[in-house]
Protein backbone atom coordinates (compact mmCIF):
# COMPACT_ATOMS: atom_id res chain seq x y z
CA UNK A 1 0.00 0.00 0.00
CA UNK A 2 2.80 2.31 0.98
CA UNK A 3 4.61 1.74 -2.31
CA UNK A 4 1.39 2.32 -4.25
CA UNK A 5 0.59 5.44 -2.30
CA UNK A 6 4.10 6.68 -3.02
CA UNK A 7 3.56 6.05 -6.68
CA UNK A 8 0.24 7.95 -6.60
CA UNK A 9 1.86 10.87 -4.77
CA UNK A 10 4.58 10.91 -7.35
CA UNK A 11 2.04 10.88 -10.15
CA UNK A 12 0.19 13.90 -8.68
CA UNK A 13 3.46 15.75 -8.19
CA UNK A 14 4.39 14.94 -11.75
CA UNK A 15 1.08 16.20 -13.06
CA UNK A 16 1.43 19.46 -11.12
CA UNK A 17 5.04 19.78 -12.24
CA UNK A 18 4.10 19.20 -15.85
CA UNK A 19 1.26 21.73 -15.69
CA UNK A 20 3.52 24.38 -14.14
CA UNK A 21 6.24 23.62 -16.64
CA UNK A 22 3.77 24.01 -19.51
CA UNK A 23 2.53 27.31 -18.12
CA UNK A 24 6.05 28.73 -17.81
CA UNK A 25 6.96 27.33 -21.18
CA UNK A 26 3.93 29.01 -22.75
CA UNK A 27 4.81 32.32 -21.08
CA UNK A 28 8.43 32.17 -22.18
CA UNK A 29 7.71 30.91 -25.71
CA UNK A 30 4.97 33.47 -26.35
CA UNK A 31 7.15 36.13 -24.71
CA UNK A 32 9.99 35.38 -27.08
CA UNK A 33 7.79 35.06 -30.17
CA UNK A 34 5.55 38.09 -29.53
CA UNK A 35 8.06 40.27 -27.82
CA UNK A 36 7.68 40.59 -24.10
CA UNK A 37 6.17 44.09 -24.30
CA UNK A 38 3.24 42.83 -26.34
CA UNK A 39 2.67 40.02 -23.92
CA UNK A 40 2.88 42.37 -20.97
CA UNK A 41 0.46 44.74 -22.63
CA UNK A 42 -1.99 41.92 -23.26
CA UNK A 43 -1.76 40.63 -19.71
CA UNK A 44 -1.93 44.19 -18.38
CA UNK A 45 -5.04 44.84 -20.43
CA UNK A 46 -6.75 41.67 -19.23
CA UNK A 47 -5.71 42.34 -15.66
CA UNK A 48 -7.12 45.86 -15.91
CA UNK A 49 -10.39 44.51 -17.26
CA UNK A 50 -10.68 42.15 -14.31
CA UNK A 51 -9.94 44.97 -11.87
CA UNK A 52 -12.56 47.19 -13.49
CA UNK A 53 -15.02 44.28 -13.41
CA UNK A 54 -14.37 43.82 -9.70
CA UNK A 55 -14.76 47.54 -9.16
CA UNK A 56 -11.32 47.93 -7.57
CA UNK A 57 -9.54 49.49 -10.50
CA UNK A 58 -10.17 51.89 -13.26
CA UNK A 59 -9.00 53.25 -16.50
CA UNK A 60 -6.32 55.70 -15.50
CA UNK A 61 -6.05 57.23 -18.89
CA UNK A 62 -8.46 58.36 -21.55
CA UNK A 63 -11.15 60.98 -21.50
CA UNK A 64 -12.63 59.53 -18.33
CA UNK A 65 -9.57 60.47 -16.31
CA UNK A 66 -10.91 63.33 -14.19
CA UNK A 67 -10.20 64.94 -10.84
CA UNK A 68 -12.70 66.10 -8.24
CA UNK A 69 -11.89 69.05 -6.02
CA UNK A 70 -13.90 70.90 -3.39
CA UNK A 71 -14.09 74.58 -4.26
CA UNK A 72 -15.41 77.75 -2.65
CA UNK A 73 -15.79 81.04 -4.42
CA UNK A 74 -14.93 83.97 -2.12
CA UNK A 75 -18.15 85.48 -0.70
CA UNK A 76 -20.10 83.12 -2.88
CA UNK A 77 -21.03 79.58 -3.65
CA UNK A 78 -19.41 76.24 -2.87
CA UNK A 79 -19.30 73.11 -4.91
CA UNK A 80 -17.36 70.19 -6.25
CA UNK A 81 -15.32 70.88 -9.35
CA UNK A 82 -14.76 67.97 -11.66
CA UNK A 83 -11.78 68.65 -13.90
CA UNK A 84 -11.35 66.61 -17.05
CA UNK A 85 -9.13 67.13 -20.05
CA UNK A 86 -11.75 68.98 -22.13
CA UNK A 87 -14.31 69.86 -19.52
CA UNK A 88 -14.56 71.49 -16.09
CA UNK A 89 -17.84 71.08 -14.23
CA UNK A 90 -18.93 72.99 -11.12
CA UNK A 91 -21.53 71.01 -9.17
CA UNK A 92 -23.20 73.31 -6.65
CA UNK A 93 -23.37 72.16 -3.03
CA UNK A 94 -24.20 75.46 -1.34
CA UNK A 95 -26.59 76.74 -2.47
CA UNK A 96 -27.82 73.78 -4.47
CA UNK A 97 -29.30 75.92 -7.24
CA UNK A 98 -28.81 79.26 -8.93
CA UNK A 99 -31.64 80.44 -11.17
CA UNK A 100 -32.85 76.85 -11.10
CA UNK A 101 -29.61 75.28 -12.29
CA UNK A 102 -27.25 73.16 -10.22
CA UNK A 103 -24.48 72.35 -12.64
CA UNK A 104 -22.24 74.61 -14.69
CA UNK A 105 -19.50 73.59 -17.07
CA UNK A 106 -16.93 74.89 -19.48
CA UNK A 107 -16.65 72.36 -22.29
CA UNK A 108 -13.64 73.17 -24.45
CA UNK A 109 -14.47 76.89 -24.60
CA UNK A 110 -18.26 76.97 -24.42
CA UNK A 111 -20.20 77.79 -21.25
CA UNK A 112 -22.90 75.31 -20.28
CA UNK A 113 -25.59 75.41 -17.63
CA UNK A 114 -27.63 72.43 -16.55
CA UNK A 115 -31.01 72.64 -14.86
CA UNK A 116 -32.48 69.35 -13.73
CA UNK A 117 -35.75 70.21 -12.04
CA UNK A 118 -36.87 73.52 -13.43
CA UNK A 119 -40.23 74.81 -12.23
CA UNK A 120 -42.48 76.88 -14.43
CA UNK A 121 -41.19 80.12 -12.95
CA UNK A 122 -37.59 79.02 -13.26
CA UNK A 123 -38.19 78.11 -16.88
CA UNK A 124 -39.44 81.64 -17.49
CA UNK A 125 -36.37 83.09 -15.81
CA UNK A 126 -34.14 80.83 -17.86
CA UNK A 127 -35.92 81.71 -21.03
CA UNK A 128 -35.10 85.32 -20.29
CA UNK A 129 -31.63 84.41 -19.16
CA UNK A 130 -30.85 82.61 -22.38
CA UNK A 131 -31.90 85.49 -24.53
CA UNK A 132 -33.52 84.23 -27.67
CA UNK A 133 -32.48 80.70 -26.97
CA UNK A 134 -34.46 77.58 -26.33
CA UNK A 135 -34.93 75.63 -23.18
CA UNK A 136 -35.77 71.96 -23.14
CA UNK A 137 -37.37 71.27 -19.79
CA UNK A 138 -37.16 67.81 -18.32
CA UNK A 139 -38.92 66.64 -15.19
CA UNK A 140 -37.25 64.85 -12.29
CA UNK A 141 -37.45 61.49 -14.05
CA UNK A 142 -35.79 62.89 -17.13
CA UNK A 143 -39.02 62.81 -19.12
CA UNK A 144 -39.51 65.63 -21.54
CA UNK A 145 -42.16 68.15 -20.56
CA UNK A 146 -44.38 69.84 -23.04
CA UNK A 147 -41.91 69.21 -25.81
CA UNK A 148 -44.22 70.26 -28.60
CA UNK A 149 -44.66 73.67 -27.09
CA UNK A 150 -40.91 74.14 -27.14
CA UNK A 151 -40.25 72.77 -30.57
CA UNK A 152 -40.52 76.15 -32.23
CA UNK A 153 -37.93 77.53 -29.86
CA UNK A 154 -35.63 74.63 -30.57
CA UNK A 155 -35.76 75.32 -34.27
CA UNK A 156 -35.01 78.97 -33.59
CA UNK A 157 -32.25 77.90 -31.26
CA UNK A 158 -30.66 75.58 -33.78
CA UNK A 159 -30.50 78.36 -36.32
CA UNK A 160 -28.76 80.60 -33.81
CA UNK A 161 -25.04 80.52 -34.26
CA UNK A 162 -24.39 81.73 -30.71
CA UNK A 163 -24.54 78.29 -29.20
CA UNK A 164 -25.76 74.76 -29.30
CA UNK A 165 -27.75 72.40 -27.15
CA UNK A 166 -27.21 68.89 -26.04
CA UNK A 167 -29.13 66.81 -23.56
CA UNK A 168 -28.48 63.83 -21.40
CA UNK A 169 -30.75 61.66 -19.29
CA UNK A 170 -30.61 64.03 -16.35
CA UNK A 171 -31.38 67.35 -17.94
CA UNK A 172 -30.53 69.75 -20.64
CA UNK A 173 -27.38 71.70 -21.26
CA UNK A 174 -27.47 75.20 -22.62
CA UNK A 175 -24.62 77.04 -24.15
CA UNK A 176 -24.32 80.66 -23.13
CA UNK A 177 -22.06 83.10 -24.94
CA UNK A 178 -19.12 83.88 -22.72
CA UNK A 179 -19.27 87.62 -23.27
CA UNK A 180 -21.25 89.53 -20.74
CA UNK A 181 -20.34 87.06 -18.08
CA UNK A 182 -17.65 89.15 -16.44
CA UNK A 183 -19.17 89.64 -12.96
CA UNK A 184 -17.36 92.93 -12.33
CA UNK A 185 -18.50 94.38 -15.64
CA UNK A 186 -22.01 93.06 -15.06
CA UNK A 187 -22.20 94.87 -11.71
CA UNK A 188 -20.98 98.12 -13.29
CA UNK A 189 -23.58 97.84 -16.05
CA UNK A 190 -26.28 97.12 -13.48
CA UNK A 191 -25.31 100.28 -11.54
CA UNK A 192 -25.36 102.39 -14.72
CA UNK A 193 -28.70 100.91 -15.76
CA UNK A 194 -30.27 101.45 -12.34
CA UNK A 195 -28.95 105.04 -12.11
CA UNK A 196 -30.21 106.03 -15.54
CA UNK A 197 -33.54 104.25 -15.11
CA UNK A 198 -34.14 106.10 -11.83
CA UNK A 199 -33.30 109.34 -13.59
CA UNK A 200 -35.80 108.64 -16.37
CA UNK A 201 -38.40 107.67 -13.75
CA UNK A 202 -37.98 111.11 -12.21
CA UNK A 203 -38.58 112.64 -15.64
CA UNK A 204 -41.71 110.50 -15.95
CA UNK A 205 -42.99 111.67 -12.57
CA UNK A 206 -42.38 115.31 -13.50
CA UNK A 207 -43.77 115.24 -17.03
CA UNK A 208 -45.82 112.03 -17.24
CA UNK A 209 -49.24 113.71 -16.97
CA UNK A 210 -51.03 110.42 -16.41
CA UNK A 211 -49.59 108.68 -19.46
CA UNK A 212 -48.41 105.09 -19.25
CA UNK A 213 -44.62 104.68 -19.22
CA UNK A 214 -44.71 102.97 -22.60
CA UNK A 215 -46.67 105.84 -24.11
CA UNK A 216 -44.54 108.46 -22.39
CA UNK A 217 -41.25 107.01 -23.58
CA UNK A 218 -42.48 106.22 -27.13
CA UNK A 219 -40.79 109.37 -28.55
CA UNK A 220 -37.47 107.87 -27.39
CA UNK A 221 -37.91 105.21 -30.09
CA UNK A 222 -38.86 107.46 -33.00
CA UNK A 223 -36.18 107.90 -35.62
CA UNK A 224 -36.74 111.42 -36.93
CA UNK A 225 -33.61 111.20 -39.05
CA UNK A 226 -35.29 108.61 -41.17
CA UNK A 227 -37.81 110.70 -43.05
CA UNK A 228 -41.22 109.59 -44.18
CA UNK A 229 -40.69 107.97 -47.56
CA UNK A 230 -43.18 106.96 -50.24
CA UNK A 231 -41.65 104.72 -52.85
CA UNK A 232 -42.88 103.85 -56.32
CA UNK A 233 -41.42 100.75 -57.89
CA UNK A 234 -42.28 100.40 -61.59
CA UNK A 235 -40.86 99.22 -64.87
CA UNK A 236 -39.66 102.77 -65.43
CA UNK A 237 -37.53 102.64 -62.29
CA UNK A 238 -37.73 103.68 -58.69
CA UNK A 239 -39.00 107.05 -57.51
CA UNK A 240 -38.74 108.07 -53.87
CA UNK A 241 -40.64 110.91 -52.23
CA UNK A 242 -39.29 112.00 -48.86
CA UNK A 243 -41.09 114.15 -46.30
CA UNK A 244 -38.82 115.86 -43.75
CA UNK A 245 -41.54 117.73 -41.91
CA UNK A 246 -41.46 120.87 -44.01
CA UNK A 247 -41.13 119.82 -47.64
CA UNK A 248 -41.13 116.90 -50.09
CA UNK A 249 -38.07 115.77 -51.97
CA UNK A 250 -38.37 113.68 -55.12
CA UNK A 251 -35.53 111.40 -56.18
CA UNK A 252 -35.24 109.51 -59.41
CA UNK A 253 -31.86 107.91 -59.97
CA UNK A 254 -29.32 110.56 -59.09
CA UNK A 255 -31.72 113.44 -59.79
CA UNK A 256 -33.16 115.28 -56.77
CA UNK A 257 -35.97 117.83 -56.95
CA UNK A 258 -38.13 119.48 -54.30
CA UNK A 259 -41.92 119.22 -54.30
CA UNK A 260 -43.58 121.75 -52.04
CA UNK A 261 -47.01 120.55 -52.90
CA UNK A 262 -48.76 117.50 -51.37
CA UNK A 263 -51.16 117.35 -54.28
CA UNK A 264 -48.39 116.99 -56.88
CA UNK A 265 -46.80 114.15 -54.92
CA UNK A 266 -50.10 112.43 -54.41
CA UNK A 267 -51.13 112.73 -58.06
CA UNK A 268 -47.86 111.17 -59.20
CA UNK A 269 -48.16 108.31 -56.71
CA UNK A 270 -51.77 107.73 -57.71
CA UNK A 271 -51.16 107.83 -61.45
CA UNK A 272 -48.26 105.35 -61.19
CA UNK A 273 -50.28 102.99 -59.02
CA UNK A 274 -53.61 103.02 -60.72
CA UNK A 275 -53.20 104.32 -64.22
CA UNK A 276 -49.92 102.98 -65.53
CA UNK A 277 -50.35 99.62 -63.82
CA UNK A 278 -47.52 97.40 -62.77
CA UNK A 279 -46.28 100.01 -60.34
CA UNK A 280 -46.21 99.46 -56.59
CA UNK A 281 -46.43 102.19 -54.01
CA UNK A 282 -45.40 101.68 -50.42
CA UNK A 283 -44.27 103.55 -47.35
CA UNK A 284 -40.71 102.70 -46.57
CA UNK A 285 -40.11 101.18 -43.18
CA UNK A 286 -43.65 99.97 -42.62
CA UNK A 287 -42.97 96.41 -43.63
CA UNK A 288 -43.81 97.01 -47.28
CA UNK A 289 -47.30 98.20 -46.37
CA UNK A 290 -48.75 99.25 -49.67
CA UNK A 291 -51.76 100.87 -51.15
CA UNK A 292 -53.00 97.84 -53.09
CA UNK A 293 -56.02 97.27 -50.89
CA UNK A 294 -57.37 100.76 -51.49
CA UNK A 295 -60.19 100.85 -54.03
CA UNK A 296 -60.90 104.49 -54.68
CA UNK A 297 -58.87 107.62 -55.20
CA UNK A 298 -60.40 109.05 -52.01
CA UNK A 299 -59.23 106.02 -50.00
CA UNK A 300 -55.82 106.42 -51.54
CA UNK A 301 -55.70 110.10 -50.60
CA UNK A 302 -56.87 109.40 -47.04
CA UNK A 303 -54.09 106.84 -46.59
CA UNK A 304 -51.53 109.24 -48.04
CA UNK A 305 -52.63 112.09 -45.74
CA UNK A 306 -52.83 109.79 -42.72
CA UNK A 307 -49.26 108.58 -43.23
CA UNK A 308 -47.98 112.14 -43.32
CA UNK A 309 -50.12 113.19 -40.36
CA UNK A 310 -48.91 110.29 -38.21
CA UNK A 311 -45.34 111.03 -39.07
CA UNK A 312 -45.80 114.73 -38.24
CA UNK A 313 -47.46 113.81 -34.97
CA UNK A 314 -44.57 111.54 -33.96
CA UNK A 315 -42.11 114.20 -34.98
CA UNK A 316 -43.87 116.85 -32.89
CA UNK A 317 -44.14 114.46 -29.94
CA UNK A 318 -40.45 113.70 -30.10
CA UNK A 319 -39.49 117.35 -30.40
CA UNK A 320 -41.59 118.16 -27.33
CA UNK A 321 -40.27 115.18 -25.39
CA UNK A 322 -36.64 115.83 -26.19
CA UNK A 323 -37.07 119.51 -25.37
CA UNK A 324 -38.50 118.60 -21.94
CA UNK A 325 -35.75 116.05 -21.44
CA UNK A 326 -33.05 118.51 -22.41
CA UNK A 327 -34.31 121.20 -20.07
CA UNK A 328 -34.60 118.55 -17.32
CA UNK A 329 -30.97 117.64 -17.84
CA UNK A 330 -29.52 121.08 -18.57
CA UNK A 331 -31.27 123.40 -16.17
CA UNK A 332 -29.56 122.21 -13.05
CA UNK A 333 -32.49 119.99 -12.15
CA UNK A 334 -32.23 117.17 -9.70
CA UNK A 335 -31.47 114.70 -12.43
CA UNK A 336 -28.58 116.56 -14.02
CA UNK A 337 -25.92 114.42 -12.47
CA UNK A 338 -26.02 110.88 -11.19
CA UNK A 339 -23.89 109.18 -8.62
CA UNK A 340 -21.80 106.49 -10.25
CA UNK A 341 -18.81 104.56 -8.91
CA UNK A 342 -17.61 107.39 -6.72
CA UNK A 343 -18.08 110.12 -9.33
CA UNK A 344 -21.06 112.22 -10.38
CA UNK A 345 -20.98 112.53 -14.16
CA UNK A 346 -23.23 114.86 -16.13
CA UNK A 347 -26.08 113.16 -17.95
CA UNK A 348 -26.59 114.31 -21.53
CA UNK A 349 -28.86 113.70 -24.46
CA UNK A 350 -27.51 112.19 -27.68
CA UNK A 351 -28.22 109.73 -30.47
CA UNK A 352 -27.12 106.17 -31.01
CA UNK A 353 -27.29 103.89 -34.02
CA UNK A 354 -29.49 100.92 -33.15
CA UNK A 355 -28.48 99.25 -36.39
CA UNK A 356 -27.36 100.30 -39.87
CA UNK A 357 -30.64 102.03 -40.74
CA UNK A 358 -32.04 103.14 -37.39
CA UNK A 359 -31.08 105.77 -34.87
CA UNK A 360 -32.57 106.49 -31.51
CA UNK A 361 -32.23 109.16 -28.82
CA UNK A 362 -30.14 108.14 -25.83
CA UNK A 363 -29.46 109.64 -22.40
CA UNK A 364 -25.91 108.98 -21.41
CA UNK A 365 -23.03 109.97 -19.18
CA UNK A 366 -19.32 109.90 -19.79
CA UNK A 367 -16.63 108.82 -17.35
CA UNK A 368 -13.25 110.60 -17.08
CA UNK A 369 -11.66 107.80 -19.15
CA UNK A 370 -14.02 108.50 -22.05
CA UNK A 371 -16.16 105.43 -21.46
CA UNK A 372 -19.89 106.05 -21.86
CA UNK A 373 -23.07 104.41 -20.58
CA UNK A 374 -26.47 105.31 -22.00
CA UNK A 375 -30.13 104.39 -21.77
CA UNK A 376 -32.30 103.93 -24.85
CA UNK A 377 -35.72 102.38 -25.40
CA UNK A 378 -36.77 99.46 -27.53
CA UNK A 379 -40.30 98.07 -27.57
CA UNK A 380 -41.18 100.37 -24.68
CA UNK A 381 -38.47 98.83 -22.48
CA UNK A 382 -35.34 100.60 -21.27
CA UNK A 383 -32.04 99.11 -22.40
CA UNK A 384 -28.41 99.93 -21.70
CA UNK A 385 -25.75 100.80 -24.25
CA UNK A 386 -22.05 101.10 -23.63
CA UNK A 387 -19.23 102.75 -25.57
CA UNK A 388 -15.51 102.68 -25.03
CA UNK A 389 -13.63 105.95 -25.46
CA UNK A 390 -13.90 107.20 -29.05
CA UNK A 391 -16.10 104.31 -30.11
CA UNK A 392 -19.80 104.06 -30.89
CA UNK A 393 -22.49 102.82 -28.54
CA UNK A 394 -23.18 99.09 -28.49
CA UNK A 395 -26.20 97.50 -26.75
CA UNK A 396 -25.27 95.67 -23.56
CA UNK A 397 -25.13 91.88 -24.07
CA UNK A 398 -26.99 91.40 -20.78
CA UNK A 399 -29.89 93.80 -21.38
CA UNK A 400 -32.49 91.18 -20.46
CA UNK A 401 -30.67 90.30 -17.26
CA UNK A 402 -30.37 93.95 -16.23
CA UNK A 403 -34.12 93.95 -15.61
CA UNK A 404 -33.90 91.03 -13.15
CA UNK A 405 -35.15 91.49 -9.57
CA UNK A 406 -32.41 91.98 -6.97
CA UNK A 407 -32.61 88.31 -5.95
CA UNK A 408 -32.42 87.03 -9.54
CA UNK A 409 -29.60 89.44 -10.26
CA UNK A 410 -27.54 88.18 -7.31
CA UNK A 411 -27.90 84.63 -8.60
CA UNK A 412 -26.95 85.73 -12.10
CA UNK A 413 -23.79 87.36 -10.76
CA UNK A 414 -22.96 84.21 -8.80
CA UNK A 415 -23.22 82.19 -12.02
CA UNK A 416 -20.86 84.68 -13.65
CA UNK A 417 -18.45 84.28 -10.73
CA UNK A 418 -18.44 80.51 -11.22
CA UNK A 419 -17.57 81.04 -14.87
CA UNK A 420 -14.74 83.41 -13.97
CA UNK A 421 -13.49 81.05 -11.27
CA UNK A 422 -13.25 78.12 -13.67
CA UNK A 423 -11.54 80.28 -16.28
CA UNK A 424 -9.02 81.53 -13.72
CA UNK A 425 -8.20 77.91 -12.86
CA UNK A 426 -7.17 77.10 -16.40
CA UNK A 427 -10.47 75.71 -17.71
CA UNK A 428 -11.59 76.52 -21.23
CA UNK A 429 -8.30 78.05 -22.29
Amino acid at each position, binding site marked *: *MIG*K*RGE*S*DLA*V*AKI*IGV*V*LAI*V*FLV*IIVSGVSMG*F*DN*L*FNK*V*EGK*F*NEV*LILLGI*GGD*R*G*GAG*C*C*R*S*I*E*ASIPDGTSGI*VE*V*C*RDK*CTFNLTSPTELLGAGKFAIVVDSWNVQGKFLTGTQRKIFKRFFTGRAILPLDSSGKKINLKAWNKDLVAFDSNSNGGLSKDSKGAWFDVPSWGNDPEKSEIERKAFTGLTELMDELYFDFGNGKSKEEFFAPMEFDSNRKLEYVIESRLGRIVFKWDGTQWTRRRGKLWTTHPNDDEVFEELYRKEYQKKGGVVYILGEGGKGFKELKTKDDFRKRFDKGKEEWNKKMRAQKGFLSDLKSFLDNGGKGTRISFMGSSPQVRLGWMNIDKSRRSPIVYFELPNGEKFGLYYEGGIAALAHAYSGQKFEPSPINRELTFSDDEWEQFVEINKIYEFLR*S*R*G*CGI
Partner: protein
Amino acid sequence: MKSGKFSVVQTLSLILGVGIFIILIALSVRIYGPAWNKGDKGAKAYFKTLEEQIGIAEGGGTGEFSLWQPVDSKNKREFFLIYFGDKYKFSIPNGRTFLFGGKENGLCICFWDGENGICDYCKVLDFPIKYKSDETQVSWDYGPWAAATGEKVTIKKIGGEYEFVKSK
Protein backbone atom coordinates in the same frame (compact mmCIF):
# COMPACT_ATOMS: atom_id res chain seq x y z
CA MET B 1 -7.35 3.87 -1.93
CA LYS B 2 -8.22 1.11 -4.28
CA SER B 3 -11.57 2.75 -4.70
CA GLY B 4 -9.65 5.61 -6.41
CA LYS B 5 -10.11 8.20 -3.62
CA PHE B 6 -7.30 10.68 -2.89
CA SER B 7 -5.42 10.31 0.33
CA VAL B 8 -5.08 13.30 2.72
CA VAL B 9 -1.50 13.84 1.55
CA GLN B 10 -2.55 13.75 -2.10
CA THR B 11 -5.39 16.21 -1.44
CA LEU B 12 -3.07 18.58 0.41
CA SER B 13 -0.50 18.27 -2.39
CA LEU B 14 -3.16 19.08 -4.95
CA ILE B 15 -4.36 22.11 -2.99
CA LEU B 16 -0.75 23.21 -2.50
CA GLY B 17 -0.03 22.72 -6.19
CA VAL B 18 -3.05 24.70 -7.28
CA GLY B 19 -2.19 27.41 -4.74
CA ILE B 20 1.37 27.66 -5.99
CA PHE B 21 0.06 27.81 -9.55
CA ILE B 22 -2.29 30.67 -8.69
CA ILE B 23 0.45 32.49 -6.78
CA LEU B 24 2.82 32.13 -9.74
CA ILE B 25 0.22 33.45 -12.14
CA ALA B 26 -0.58 36.34 -9.78
CA LEU B 27 3.12 37.11 -9.42
CA SER B 28 3.56 37.08 -13.19
CA VAL B 29 0.71 39.52 -13.62
CA ARG B 30 1.97 41.59 -10.71
CA ILE B 31 5.38 41.89 -12.31
CA TYR B 32 4.25 42.42 -15.85
CA GLY B 33 0.81 43.94 -15.20
CA PRO B 34 -0.34 47.50 -14.46
CA ALA B 35 0.68 47.35 -10.80
CA TRP B 36 4.20 47.26 -12.19
CA ASN B 37 3.61 50.37 -14.19
CA LYS B 38 6.96 51.73 -15.31
CA GLY B 39 5.60 55.27 -15.41
CA ASP B 40 4.09 55.01 -11.99
CA LYS B 41 7.19 53.46 -10.43
CA GLY B 42 9.39 56.05 -12.09
CA ALA B 43 7.18 58.89 -10.88
CA LYS B 44 7.18 57.47 -7.38
CA ALA B 45 10.98 57.30 -7.33
CA TYR B 46 11.33 60.82 -8.67
CA PHE B 47 8.79 62.07 -6.14
CA LYS B 48 10.78 60.62 -3.25
CA THR B 49 13.87 62.46 -4.45
CA LEU B 50 11.90 65.66 -4.94
CA GLU B 51 10.56 65.50 -1.38
CA GLU B 52 14.10 65.01 -0.07
CA GLN B 53 15.39 68.02 -2.02
CA ILE B 54 12.51 70.20 -0.86
CA GLY B 55 13.38 69.07 2.67
CA ILE B 56 16.95 70.28 2.13
CA ALA B 57 15.65 73.66 0.94
CA GLU B 58 13.33 73.89 3.93
CA GLY B 59 16.33 73.24 6.16
CA GLY B 60 18.03 76.33 4.74
CA GLY B 61 20.13 74.58 2.08
CA THR B 62 19.87 74.39 -1.69
CA GLY B 63 18.13 71.37 -3.15
CA GLU B 64 18.62 70.11 -6.67
CA PHE B 65 16.31 68.06 -8.77
CA SER B 66 16.49 66.76 -12.31
CA LEU B 67 14.67 64.28 -14.49
CA TRP B 68 17.39 62.07 -15.90
CA GLN B 69 15.40 59.22 -17.40
CA PRO B 70 15.41 59.54 -21.22
CA VAL B 71 12.15 59.73 -23.12
CA ASP B 72 10.93 56.23 -23.87
CA SER B 73 10.77 56.44 -27.64
CA LYS B 74 8.80 53.21 -27.92
CA ASN B 75 5.73 54.29 -25.98
CA LYS B 76 6.60 58.02 -25.82
CA ARG B 77 6.65 57.95 -22.03
CA GLU B 78 8.11 61.18 -20.71
CA PHE B 79 8.40 62.55 -17.17
CA PHE B 80 7.82 66.14 -16.09
CA LEU B 81 8.05 68.21 -12.97
CA ILE B 82 4.97 70.42 -13.09
CA TYR B 83 3.95 73.31 -10.84
CA PHE B 84 0.25 74.08 -11.22
CA GLY B 85 0.11 77.32 -9.21
CA ASP B 86 -3.59 78.03 -8.77
CA LYS B 87 -4.65 76.11 -11.89
CA TYR B 88 -6.47 72.81 -12.18
CA LYS B 89 -5.02 72.12 -15.63
CA PHE B 90 -1.78 72.78 -17.39
CA SER B 91 -0.96 72.11 -21.02
CA ILE B 92 2.44 71.83 -22.62
CA PRO B 93 3.21 71.76 -26.35
CA ASN B 94 1.81 69.00 -28.57
CA GLY B 95 -1.56 69.09 -26.83
CA ARG B 96 -0.38 67.34 -23.69
CA THR B 97 -2.66 68.31 -20.81
CA PHE B 98 -2.07 67.46 -17.16
CA LEU B 99 -4.65 67.67 -14.37
CA PHE B 100 -4.07 68.49 -10.72
CA GLY B 101 -6.44 67.19 -8.06
CA GLY B 102 -5.86 69.86 -5.41
CA LYS B 103 -6.65 73.49 -4.73
CA GLU B 104 -3.39 75.37 -5.24
CA ASN B 105 0.42 75.31 -4.96
CA GLY B 106 0.51 71.79 -6.35
CA LEU B 107 3.93 70.45 -7.40
CA CYS B 108 3.72 67.12 -9.17
CA ILE B 109 5.81 64.48 -10.83
CA CYS B 110 3.78 63.70 -13.92
CA PHE B 111 4.30 61.51 -16.90
CA TRP B 112 2.89 61.38 -20.37
CA ASP B 113 2.04 57.80 -21.26
CA GLY B 114 1.66 58.45 -24.96
CA GLU B 115 -2.02 59.34 -24.70
CA ASN B 116 -2.66 60.88 -21.29
CA GLY B 117 -0.97 63.04 -18.73
CA ILE B 118 -0.85 61.36 -15.33
CA CYS B 119 -0.03 63.25 -12.14
CA ASP B 120 -0.45 60.84 -9.23
CA TYR B 121 2.49 62.05 -7.15
CA CYS B 122 1.83 65.58 -5.97
CA LYS B 123 2.89 67.69 -3.04
CA VAL B 124 0.68 70.56 -1.96
CA LEU B 125 3.11 73.20 -0.75
CA ASP B 126 2.32 75.53 2.10
CA PHE B 127 3.88 78.41 0.20
CA PRO B 128 3.83 79.42 -3.47
CA ILE B 129 6.75 78.88 -5.82
CA LYS B 130 8.41 81.74 -7.65
CA TYR B 131 10.22 80.55 -10.71
CA LYS B 132 12.83 81.49 -13.30
CA SER B 133 13.18 79.49 -16.49
CA ASP B 134 16.89 80.37 -16.50
CA GLU B 135 19.30 82.14 -14.20
CA THR B 136 19.49 85.26 -16.38
CA GLN B 137 15.77 85.93 -16.23
CA VAL B 138 15.16 89.23 -14.43
CA SER B 139 11.68 88.80 -12.96
CA TRP B 140 10.05 85.86 -11.22
CA ASP B 141 7.05 83.95 -12.52
CA TYR B 142 4.32 82.76 -10.20
CA GLY B 143 2.23 80.89 -12.75
CA PRO B 144 2.37 77.23 -13.74
CA TRP B 145 5.45 75.77 -15.39
CA ALA B 146 6.98 72.44 -16.34
CA ALA B 147 10.52 71.03 -16.34
CA ALA B 148 11.25 68.16 -18.71
CA THR B 149 13.89 65.47 -19.04
CA GLY B 150 17.44 66.81 -18.99
CA GLU B 151 16.47 69.98 -17.15
CA LYS B 152 17.63 70.68 -13.65
CA VAL B 153 16.07 72.93 -11.01
CA THR B 154 17.67 74.35 -7.93
CA ILE B 155 15.38 74.73 -4.94
CA LYS B 156 15.59 77.29 -2.16
CA LYS B 157 13.19 78.49 0.45
CA ILE B 158 13.40 82.19 1.20
CA GLY B 159 10.91 83.50 3.74
CA GLY B 160 7.40 82.55 2.78
CA GLU B 161 8.27 81.42 -0.76
CA TYR B 162 10.08 78.69 -2.59
CA GLU B 163 12.50 79.69 -5.32
CA PHE B 164 12.89 77.31 -8.24
CA VAL B 165 15.44 78.16 -10.93
CA LYS B 166 15.77 76.00 -13.98
CA SER B 167 19.05 75.25 -15.74
CA LYS B 168 20.10 72.83 -18.46
